[in-house]
């Protein structure tokens, strides 16, 4: 009798029901407030941490905190994997086994499209995927985007004290006359909702694409952009080729914008959606959206990485050798 046991809800349904009821009662007791939405990351410190001569003041922002968390998590992960791999040579256990699954799948994709350059391309691809994945998913952790400093604001909300002098909460309602309204500046905000992060990542991707192109083809790679040769060979089409090369150059810059705004837009839109729906219909629906956002985060991470990888592998192939 090895027939597969049919999965049924069992005790889980009661947990789900319990949490839905808790969700509804909590939302009825304290109506959720849509947080203050702004594109630029919030500064957590009023005074700059340090001032650089040219760049200017440098504040600690909440996206930076998230980035630190991502970095620490990834470095701990790397350390664990390193230790596990140094112990057992062929059978990774624990977290390394999980990571191995991901790495193997990603590497197979890379190998199928990049061929012999897979070894050079893959580390960047994998790093981007892992970093973006964690940056996207960090917004799903409870408390992110909702716990932070209270700040004075004209559009603020009244405050009640939960634990005196330590923990307070803003509640829905009108600020009393003469009182002060507050908004929350969260400690942690998903990194992907910071344009600095996405633009930085896009710049890295595009620059590394050029680097890989130069490594693969040498200075012949430049003919992709500055195609002077054909002008003398065939006057009209050669000129067209020159213009196409110019367009290629522009498209490289467009790639930065495309990369960065795709990731930023997806995750920021997801965050905004969660905020808005969470304040409008705080019953059960945000849970579904959370699952959706989980999927979106995974897909965007894969898309960012795979686009980088595809552009890189295209850069390794020369102008006239697409077929090979």
């Amino acid at each position, binding site marked *: 009798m090895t027939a597969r046991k049919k999965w049924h809800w069992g005790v889980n349904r009661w947990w789900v029901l319990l949490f839905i009821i808790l969700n509804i009662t909590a939302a009825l007791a304290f109506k959720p407030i849509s947080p203050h939405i*702004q*594109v*630029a*990351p919030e500064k957590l410190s009023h005074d700059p941490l340090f001032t*650089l001569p040219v*760049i*200017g003041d*440098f504040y600690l*922002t909440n996206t*930076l905190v998230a*980035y*630190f968390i*991502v*970095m620490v998590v*990834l*470095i701990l*992960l*790397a*350390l664990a*994997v*390193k230790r596990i*791999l*140094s112990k057992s*040579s*062929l059978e*990774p256990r624990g977290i*390394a086994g999980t*990571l*191995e699954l991901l*790495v*193997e799948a990603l*590497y197979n994709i890379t190998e199928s499209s990049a061929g012999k350059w897979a*070894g050079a391309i*893959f*580390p*960047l691809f*994998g*790093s981007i995927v*892992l*970093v973006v994945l964690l940056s996207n998913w960090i917004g799903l952790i409870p408390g992110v985007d909702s716990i932070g400093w209270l700040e004075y604001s004209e559009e603020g909300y009244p405050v009640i004290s939960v634990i005196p002098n330590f923990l307070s909460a803003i509640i829905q309602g009108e600020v009393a006359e003469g009182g002060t309204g507050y908004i929350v500046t969260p400690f942690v905000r998903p*990194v992907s909702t*910071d*344009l*600095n*992060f996405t*633009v*930085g*990542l896009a*710049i*890295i991707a595009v620059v590394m694409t050029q680097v890989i192109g130069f490594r693969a083809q040498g200075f012949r790679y430049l003919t992709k952009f500055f195609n002077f040769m054909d002008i003398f060979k065939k006057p009209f089409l050669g000129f067209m080729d020159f213009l196409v090369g110019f367009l290629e150059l522009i498209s490289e810059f467009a790639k930065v914008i495309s990369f960065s705004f795709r990731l930023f837009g997806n995750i920021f839109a997801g965050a905004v959606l969660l905020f808005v729906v969470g304040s409008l219909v705080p019953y059960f629906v945000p849970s579904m959206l959370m699952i959706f956002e989980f999927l979106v985060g995974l897909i965007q991470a894969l898309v960012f990485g795979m686009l980088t990888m595809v552009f890189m592998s295209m850069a390794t192939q020369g102008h006239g050798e697409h077929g090979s």
Partner: protein
Amino acid sequence: MEKLGLNLGYLLVQITMFAVIFVTLRAWVFKPLLAMLEKRKRVINQGLEDARLAGESRANAEQDAQKIIAEAQAKSNQIVREASERAEHASRDITHSAEVEAARLLEQGKKDVEIERNRVLTELRGDVAALAIAAAQKLIEVNLDEKRQRTLLDEFFSGIRSGKVTLLENASMAGKTAEVTSALPLTDAEQTVVKTDILSKVKGTPTVRYRVDPSILGGLVVKIGDTVLDGSVAGQLQNLKQSLE
């Protein structure tokens, strides 16, 4: 730009942070993991290759075993066939030789029997002849009286005269002694007949001597030198006996 939050400082910081993560991950995760994957793939391929080789060699061994068995069977079949052939051959040989031997033995036996019979017959014949002759002698001795003796002599002489007995023709008798033996003493007339009839035919004139020997039973025996003219009954009996044997 300010409201978008784009800031060169943050950009650089985040790029450097990504670089840190990238280097760490590459050094500690991707390179060892990829090396491990490569190694594992190699090990698995090695194992598969080994398994394939083992399978192949097993198949080869099976084939060899099959071949060996087939060869052994063929050889054993051949041996059996040869053995049976040889046995058949041998049995045929034996049968043949036995037949030959039997035939030979039979032949031999037949021959022996023949020889024996011939011998016995010969012996018997000799005995019979001897007995017959003895009986005849006895008979003849009893019956040969004087009168018959004279008749026998006459027949002899008449035979010579008529040319029936053509012995002593032209034989040289010169200087030799003719000896005439008879069972009874010859009369004078008879002696002259002997002289004229017998001795006239030979050349020369031998001296004739007459002898009487009753053992010749009857008739005459003329002996001139080495030549004997046997006209005696005993001589005829002797001839008979010889022809009987």
